[in-house]
């Protein structure tokens, strides 16, 4: 399956991926409406260092700890290997956050959690973070 991969040496640390993620998943038609004066809960996060930066999002692990640990059955793997969350079932216990070794599950601000679903469930259709990255520091491909 295609996943989002990082080219660490190319990340500028501009955080555009975070904004594009929040916008793509907001359901709003304009970025201003989606983001202005709002606290955002992006599913990709940029870590900044002295020498390098990189953006971290769900690895869609082959054997995901989050799914095995989910107490509500809300996290599942679809037939293509994408780890998805059913918000209807999530009760916000945060056990997935407690176990994800990459720290890629985030709270959604409404009592449940969010995670990268590769923009396959929103209108974007493929990862908005990758589309909007100005330096190809994140790519969406098969490896």
């Amino acid at each position, binding site marked *: 399956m295609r996943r989002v991969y990082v080219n*660490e040496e190319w990340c500028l640390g501009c955080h555009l991926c975070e904004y594009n993620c929040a916008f793509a998943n907001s359901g709003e038609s304009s970025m201003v409406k989606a983001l202005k004066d709002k606290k955002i809960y992006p599913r990709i996060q940029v870590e900044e260092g002295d020498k390098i930066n990189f953006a*971290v999002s769900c690895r869609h692990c082959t054997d995901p700890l989050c799914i095995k640990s989910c*107490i*509500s059955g809300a996290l599942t793997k679809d037939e293509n290997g994408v780890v998805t969350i059913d918000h209807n079932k999530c009760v916000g216990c945060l056990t997935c*956050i*407690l*176990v994800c070794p990459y720290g890629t599950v985030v709270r959604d601000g409404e009592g449940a959690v969010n995670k990268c679903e590769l923009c396959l469930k929103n209108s974007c259709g493929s990862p908005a973070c990758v589309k909007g990255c100005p330096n190809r520091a994140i790519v969406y491909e098969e*490896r």
Partner: protein
Amino acid sequence: MMKHYVIIGNGTAAVGCIEGIRTVDKESPITVVSGENRHVYCRPLISYYLEEMTDIEKMKYRKDSFYSDNNCEVLYGKHAVAVDKDKKTVQLDDGEVLNYDELCVAAGSRSFVPPFEGLDTVEKKFNFMTLDDALALESAVEPDSKVLIVGAGLIGLKCAEGIQDRVGSITVCDLADRVLSSILDSECSELMSRNLEEHGISLMLGDTAVRFDKNTAYMKSGSEVDFDVLVLAVGVRANISLVKDACGEVNRGIIINNRMQTTIDNIYAAGDCTEGKDSSDGQNRVIAILPNAYMQGKCAGVNMAGGDETFDNAIPMNSIGFFGMNAMTAGQRPDDAEVYEEKSDNRIKKLYTKDGYLTGFMMINCAERTGIYTSLIRNKTPLDSVDFDLLKKNPGLMPFGENYTGKKLGSVV
């Protein structure tokens, strides 16, 4: 060769076991003995059901077709009463006898109710372990009910949160001097207590009921508590008797190795009924948490079907919230551990390190990216291989170095 698999229990560990078996053996029949008359549901969600954050349909742990998709026959409302390890049979309470080639005991745990004097005079009394318990409690409470919950552990307090909007008042008592004493130290517990009290829960700590007379509890301290509804959440006990009676090794739980084998050939065990190695300190203990149940069940299933899997990094861990305040704990906190602490009004973070490893942590309201710390415990990562000074302040991947991030973020993991 076709085998016949039998699983005693129909909870999370049983699902793990079924899914584990099916990774290796797609064909052989599986019989599931389900004491509860229900499709597998998420047991920890019973308080969320009362809170109306979920419903019985949404609580299903797997979809309706799960058993048929996996060629399982489920015997609902039946209990296993004995295992004959020589004949390789399981006897059920209705007299039926099941043959097995490979057996998994995933029998869970039950409420432990100490022998209170006068308990039989209490009309409305409940445990809080199953969905049926929750439904019974739901139909017993009224908007003006006075509820007394004995036990301020995870179960008792989750129950309190679940029914808080449905009742008049809730008092929770516990012989321990603090809430959640099995997972929190006094400082974290204090913060959580304050939060519970701010949300209308009355706490009586260091005190417990010793005697009941109808609607009155007589406390150890001498005080009396009037109530309409009583919930007993004192503790739980692993269901070990099937294996014990078959002369398998048991302690507080059924003893298993890292392949989920009991000491009896062809009998495996998984979930809350088991006692295995806690990899955070090497001690054997019951780790009755859902992730463990699933992972043990899966491992057992793979091995039952002739595969080869080990599960050797079980650690105790909990993420639990009450009225918006989250507590997360993992691993152990040895007395001689070094502690890194951050504290502010509504937030506590404590990391315990010893001999160059993170052995455990305890957090109130600082959930973000905590799994990175959990992974240090689970993977026994030597702290000198990471920039722990950076990591202890902010959980992230940067402190693991470029080799690690290059691999984890640049390839399939």
